[in-house]
Structure formats: structure tokens, C-alpha cells
């Protein structure tokens, strides 16, 4: 009996503390700067290392006749947000943002196409 009362008192203690839950879409939860969400590419030189370290085959690139990389495609549908491409990019061209709300009606929105080479 003593144990039940003691347990109840411990539970009741929680009536007097602030709630820890949030009403999600209205209030955003804590998010760290290092969060691995949607990719952003800037300053890519087309070396192709990201493709080699990507486990899910989310990165494709197309070359012209001379073998120069013309464009990169990051397919967020396949991406598992492990961050390998970001960690191993020698030019730190890939950044991962805090954007994680990727639901969309158009599949094409999840395909990020970037021009390769030094022109980006």
C-alpha cells in the first residue's frame, strides 16, 4: 500500500511542472545546426566522390562527350540522409539544411538538379 501511495505522489508531482510536449505544426521542435535534412549544393567541381560514397544510389551525374560533368541529380526519394556526401566532399560544396518537411504532391520536387563543373 505504501508503495502505491508513494508512486501516486510521484506521478502527481508532474501536475505542477511544465509540459514537455509541443503542438507540432504551430510550434517547431528544437533543431540543431548540424541537422541532416534536405541537401543544398553550391560550388561543385564535379569530382564524383559523393556518388562513390552514397550508399543508396541517390546521386547521378551526366557527362558530355569530353567526359566533363554536365549536371548532377540528387534524388531525395532515395536519399537516406546519412551525410556521407557532405562529409567526404573535398570542396565542402554539399550542405545539409534543417529542412525536413519534404512532403509534396509532385514527385519532381524531390529531384534536385545541379549544373556540374566550375560554373555553379
Amino acid at each position, binding site marked *: 500500500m505504501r508503495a502505491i501511495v*508513494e*508512486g501516486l505522489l510521484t*506521478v502527481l508531482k508532474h501536475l505542477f511542472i511544465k509540459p514537455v510536449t509541443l503542438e507540432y505544426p504551430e510550434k517547431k521542435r*528544437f533543431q540543431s545546426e548540424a*541537422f*541532416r535534412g534536405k541537401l543544398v549544393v553550391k560550388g561543385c567541381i564535379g569530382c564524383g566522390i559523393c556518388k*562513390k560514397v*552514397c*550508399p543508396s544510389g541517390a546521386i547521378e551525374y551526366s557527362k558530355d562527350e569530353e567526359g566533363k560533368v554536365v549536371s548532377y541529380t540528387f534524388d531525395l526519394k532515395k536519399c537516406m540522409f546519412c551525410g556521407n556526401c557532405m562529409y567526404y566532399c573535398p570542396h565542402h560544396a554539399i550542405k545539409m539544411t534543417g529542412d525536413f518537411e519534404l512532403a509534396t504532391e509532385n514527385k519532381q520536387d524531390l529531384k534536385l538538379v545541379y549544373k556540374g563543373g566550375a560554373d555553379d
Partner: protein
Amino acid sequence: MTTARTLKLNLGPQHPSTHGVLRLILELEGEKILSCEPDIGYLHRGMEKMAEGLTYIQNLPTVDRIDYLSGCFYSELFCRTVEKALGITISEKSKIIRVTLLELNRIASHLLWIGAFLMDLGALSPFFYAMREREMILRFFEKLTGQRMMYNYFVFGGVRKDIDYIEDIAEIVRVLPEKIEDYEKIITDNPIFIQRTRGKGILKPETAFNNSITGANLRASGVNYDLRTTDELYKGFEFSPVVLDGKDSWTRYKARIMEIKESIKIIEQGLDKLKTCGKLEQKLINPLNIKLPEGEYYSEIEAPRGLASIFIKSTGEDKPYRLKWRTGSYYSINLLRELLIGEYLNDAIAIAGSLDIILPEADK
């Protein structure tokens, strides 16, 4: 064999308290269980076969997903095996960082188990409390690694970057003991809890040996078997394995609670060491050119759900020829065949819950 007197009952796969998708085919006489046939594979993702098609660096983020509640352990296991094969030694600070994070991960995993187990028994409040404390740990992990559960933080030769947010760990270590005390006040001596767990699901050491049971389940049966005591990584850390001799569900609960306290001790030691360590120095290897020498490699570690081990066979290529995981839950599920016989149906969930079964880890 069902007869006119017995009833065949499917427990799961979509019962809300079966933790993922476990199906138990029970044969009942009245409410008494005559036989139990676990059916797994609903969460099978082909991790082992997939690993054969990926290079070692591509495999690294996927191993976190073997068990999403204790990803660090499988990361550590994979890194350790590759390091062993390539003859790399990791720096002292990387070791301390790894131990600290592993133990934090173990606490997070045990906390979720406490919540889920109590929810199986119909107690809702502890689940929320446990999730609240776990959130502190996950938040620290998110700050450090960028994600809450799939860290991809351990790399071949060390860790991804130097540890930061040490004050967060200090805060966790400071707050957690009193919260654990709160759980104990609510749960440990509660007569309803005791009635549902004391003397239920008795696991004799012989049964445990025959079923390859390891981890807290085995230690709650009075067998002193903790891989951490002999692990190279834990050298210099002082702790005592939790060995209790109750053999029932209640003891398994108690063992995990005590294990959290032991883990806190290890983290405290890790924090002290980190403060005097200086900057992280490590030599990472080129990720694009990792080829394991021909041969077979094996490592093991004490994961939250028992012994976890990995076997890699390499033919000298940049991809593993065969990669095999051994995970604790797989054996715990198989144990239900013996443990549930003679028990009542309403105890089945409580007993299954007390074994800390995580389905993705068993199905791989």
C-alpha cells in the same frame, strides 16, 4: 497440433504492444499456453545481402539501421572489424569518446525499453517519463552528429569530429539518477507490477545457455557474463557488471535499471577523462580505397540486447564477400518457445516484453 480442446491464436503481427511486428502462433487450452511458435521476418530488409553490394564506406551508414535504438553499437562493431583487418589503432581520445557515446546510447535504449515494457503491462505514465529523459540524450546526439538515431558518427580510424557539447552530457548525468529514482518509486515496489512480473517467465541458466541468451537477460539469471569486462575499448573504466539471481521478469527489469546506473558511472569517468584529454588527434584513412585483406574477421561487443557480433569474409575486394550479424533479440524471440509454455495468455505479453525484443534487430 490443434485438437477439439485447444485453440490456435495469432498474437500479432499487428498487435499494438508487440513492438514492431512479431507474430506468435500460440496454442491454447483455456488460457494456458501449450505451445508457441514465433514467426519473424516482417521487418526483414536484407541488410546482410545488401552489404555485399556496397563498398565499406557505403556500408558504414547502413549499419546504424540494424537496430535503430542502439545504432552506435553496430557502428562501433563494423568500424572495429575494419580497423582490425587493416591494422589501424585508434587514438586514446577516440576510444573515450566512443565509450561515452556507447553508454549514452545504452541508456537511451534501456529507457525506451522501460517505457515500452510498462506500457505492455498497462502503465502509461512511465512511458512518457522515460521518453522525456531519452529525449535529452537524443537531443545531445542530434547536436553532435546531426541526427537523433542514425548517427553515422564513428568512422574507420576514429570518430567523425571532436566531441562537443560536453556540458549536455554533464547535465544528463546530473539529472538522470533522480529520474531513475522516480521510476523506482513508481514501478519497483508497486504491488500490481510485482504480481504481474514476480515469478513469471522463469529463465533458468541452462535454458539460457541452450538458447544462446546473452546480455541483461542472462545476467538476471545469475550468470556473470558481461563482455565489457574484457573489452579492449573499456580498459581503464571501472564498473561492475549487474548480476542478479531472480531469473524472472521482475529481475530482468531490475537488472536494466541497475545497468543504467552503471552506465552513468562509466559516462562520468569518460567525462573526467575527456576534460584532461586535449584535442582529438586521429589519422583517418582514404574512404574511397578501403580493401580488406583476404580473410575472415570477427568482432563482438556487449550491446543493450546482448552480445552482438559481426563476421566479415573478404576476398580482397572493396566490398565484403559475406557479412553476417549476430544480434541478441533473435535469440530472445526463439526463447519464447520454451518460456511461454505453461504460462497464461495474459502473461505472454509481459514475458515477451521483459526480454527486450526489438524486431528490426532480429529480422535485419
